[in-house]
């Protein structure tokens, strides 16, 4: 059994990102597959490299990066949703003459086709929005 998961809520707007993270972590620990996690709409804020919460709070972006590294997770950020909100990859920044990447480790930027493909390949589709 594997899952395609869409997250379309900003981490500080609702509980959706937290719930998604805990679901994915639990599923992986139990041996289920996560085909892909797709960050859409305000969900792209989960991938913001420079998020720097106070030391006594959960580190939402960093824990995604760690989970991606541990389980080789495919974390995909929608390019149009990200550009609209000002989150640019290293390549996109370079085109604008900047040396930077706004994308946290373990995420990659791609298009909606990746989400469509994931929904076709996975056994189950889940959406976390809020």
């Amino acid at each position, binding site marked *: 059994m594997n899952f395609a998961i869409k997250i379309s809520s900003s981490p500080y707007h609702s509980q959706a990102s937290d719930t998604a993270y805990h679901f994915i972590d639990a599923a992986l620990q139990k041996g289920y597959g996560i085909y892909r996690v797709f960050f*859409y709409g305000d969900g792209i804020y989960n991938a913001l490299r420079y998020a720097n919460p106070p030391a006594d709070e959960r580190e939402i972006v960093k824990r995604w990066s760690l989970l991606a590294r541990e389980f080789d997770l495919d974390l995909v950020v929608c390019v149009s949703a990200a550009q609209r909100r000002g989150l640019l990859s290293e390549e996109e920044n370079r085109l604008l003459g900047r040396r930077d990447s706004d994308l946290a480790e373990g995420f990659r930027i791609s298009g*909606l086709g990746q989400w469509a493909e994931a929904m076709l390949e996975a056994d189950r589709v889940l*959406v976390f929005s809020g």
Partner: protein
Amino acid sequence: MKKSFLYVIQSTSFDGVRIQEALDEIMTVAAFDQSVSLLFIDDGVYSLKRGQNPEILNLKNVTPIFDALAMYEIQQFFAEDESLKIRGLSSDDLILSVKSICRSEIGELWDKFDVILTG
């Protein structure tokens, strides 16, 4: 691989870019040659209302995109009867021809689709 998709639209055209991004996703899935239908409930029924002028608010008019969906071979458009009635709308007020469906029938409708998504 072919699956049937039902997108549930619950917000108006004036809720940020929510509808625009939902429509982008819907068109992408349809372009993958999938069977896609749309269900409008709650304030989502307003997104189909005739006579909207979002340009006054410097917002994009998504009405032409709904028109274009027919070109993408969207299977069917459903609207919940109760959501229309409570907002004083009838099918004549809408830009598209929709199949009106009662709240009590929605569970049955959901059973017909492989994947159900919110926009």
